[in-house]
């Protein structure tokens, strides 16, 4: 599904990603872990086409298509979704209006007719249940006045609405209490199908207690330095990252 080869990327002329290689197959859950500043968020931003980052080398193919030449909105239409670490507030734009525009843009891209108001509202009701998102929130402006937990739930709600093939969860666990974490993680699991994949970017093991990864990677200093099964996450939780740094230096 996703094939990253020797990916290098800069922000403001500073190289952050220094040759990433990663392959995610349909149905797989991959976790990317690593210390602060290792390039985890850069990787997710580069994949969804954030304009502040510049790719200087390497290729990314998504479902056989060259991802890097696509606009951010087309990457979304093709089935790539990012659950933002810090979802932004958009005052004045209701969630209903926002989601309806997003869903219908995707349908337009796929050559499908726009949903009618009643079809759309029905879909919204259905998907809201996935993350137990309050009707009240759905009627407010996008993320405006949402608590940290509500914002993250809202991200997963949008994921449910857009039905992506590959979802990137960027530090989705940060700022969540244990109940919110459970709701969000269960939401992700409910949406998971054998055809869809998830890339979980996280510092901690605790999210991986709920969303079980098939593969765990350690990102350090712009490169993936270690790849193993789920047991690696537990080892990191226990021992921290220093031993990996040490291993690399030796």
């Amino acid at each position: 599904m996703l094939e990253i080869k020797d990916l290098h990327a800069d922000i403001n002329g500073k190289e952050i990603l220094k040759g990433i290689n990663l392959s995610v197959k349909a149905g797989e859950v991959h976790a990317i872990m690593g210390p602060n500043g290792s390039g985890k968020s850069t990787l997710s931003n580069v994949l969804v086409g954030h304009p502040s980052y510049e790719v200087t080398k390497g290729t990314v193919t998504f479902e056989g298509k060259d991802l890097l030449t696509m606009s951010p909105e087309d990457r979304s239409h093709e089935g790539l979704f990012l659950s933002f670490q810090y979802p932004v507030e958009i005052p004045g734009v209701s969630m209903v209006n926002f989601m309806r525009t997003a869903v219908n843009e995707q349908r337009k891209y796929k050559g499908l007719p726009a949903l009618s108001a009643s079809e759309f509202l029905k879909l919204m009701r259905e998907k809201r249940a996935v993350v137990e998102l309050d009707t009240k929130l759905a009627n407010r402006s996008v993320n405006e006045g949402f608590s940290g937990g509500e914002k993250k739930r809202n991200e997963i709600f949008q994921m449910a609405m857009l039905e992506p093939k590959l979802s990137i969860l960027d530090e989705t666990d940060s700022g969540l209490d244990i109940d919110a974490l459970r709701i969000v993680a269960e939401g992700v699991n409910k949406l998971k199908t054998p055809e869809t994949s998830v890339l979980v970017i996280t510092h901690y093991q605790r999210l991986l207690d709920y969303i079980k990864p098939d593969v765990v990677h350690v990102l350090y200093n712009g490169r993936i330095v270690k790849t193993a099964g789920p047991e690696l996450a537990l080892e990191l939780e226990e021992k921290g990252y220093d031993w990996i740094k040490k291993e690399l230096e030796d």
Partner: protein
Amino acid sequence: MQNNNKSERLAEPYEVEEKSAQKGVTEEEPNKLIKQIAQEKYKYGFTTDVHTEVIERGLNEDTVRLISAKKNEPEWLLEFRLKAFRYWQTMEMPTWAHLTIPEIDYQAISYYADPTVKKKGPKSMDEVDPELIKTFDKLGIPLEERMALSGVAVDAVMDSISVKTTFKETLMEKGIIFCSISEAVREHPDLVKKYLGSVVPYRDNFFAALNSAVFSDGSFVYIPKGTRCPMELSTYFRINAANTGQFERTLIVADDDSYVSYLEGCTAPMRDENQLHAAIVEIVVLDRAEVKYSTVQNWYPGDAEGKGGVYNFVTKRGHCRGVDSKLSWTQVETGSAITWKYPSCILGGDNSQAEFYSVAVTNNYQQADTGTKMIHIGKNTSSTIISKGISAGKSQNSYRGLVRVAEKADNARNYSQCDSLLLGSQCGAHTFPYMDIHNETAIVEHEATTSKISEDQLFYCNQRGIPTEDAIGLIVNGYAKEVLNKLPMEFAVEAQKLLAVSLEGSVG
């Protein structure tokens, strides 16, 4: 990123300036896009090839006499024009607005252009030049009644002449007069004489004096006592001829216990030369009457480099003369290279109410200095001001407003809210609220906010599959919702689209 500013009875005007973006929006890239879009998106920029009688350029007493003669006007109106002209000659153009106005050569403009050429207004559709009908069709204003938007009567004005007024007869059955001002001068001289210049005297300001001297067509509306106008009335102004100015004059009188909703729209061809438009709108609201006046102003704004565009200097004022009268201004201003416009209300009658709802958009090199004046004179009067400025490109957008409470205006109440939204880092937004309060019982509130569409907001939308242009449309329409909701329903959707189109290409 919002400043909230709440103050009561602010004595001094202040300015909110300083709009810099911290995000690195590169300038070259969007410029390319702006250029393309600004050029192609003004879809009203075509010209009509129609035989037009244009009088010689220049302005002197003979010009004024010629215009009056062409309209077969009575002596009193010629006198009115001449007095205004003589007064205008003693005046200088005002410079207090936050606008950079290039010098205007008033002798290089023609003050009268007649695309119908016939001496009298046409009587049936057959007599109107098909080119003119086609033009208005193209603008989305069908002039044949059977094709017209249901429930809307239209007075269509091109250059100096009213081409056609629809549903005139239907309205007449209720005693409602809706016609061009020229026709009103001929058919209803007493009404015109009684009210013309009674709200905006020719001495009011430089452009009011100029308009009073050379005004051509515009609409006249009279709603008789106790009558609720059964349809929306609307005037559509179109500038077509080159090197001419348009000086429309509109007069609306709502007699006791009447109601009318009126809408004006305006467009002009794309030309490299600037064109002058100096209008006056006067509204008289008598006892317990209500007038809603809406404007969708979309004059040609000039190209992406700031070349061409209409100079729009307009004096609009309503007088709530009667007790319990109500006047509401709603404006969506997206066009014009320069806008100088302050639709105002004199709250004369006790318990009268006034509203001003405004969205002003500036992009590229457009400049707008717009706002309102609320003059409270009667007792228990109240006014509301909601102003939403949106600036993009290299434009300058100012809100200028005055709230005055006279000595005897007990229990006056005003609430003002002025919001500015910035797109990009090279535009300016300014707020100049003046308050002049002479009665202790007054309650006057002013709130202001400034916000910016951030790159992060746009990217968030992009990631959900919403292209940047649509994202801006969503955000801007959300921001302007409060004002757009005030427009008659038939036009609210159009206005929404217009907002999005006006701002396309404004963020990289």
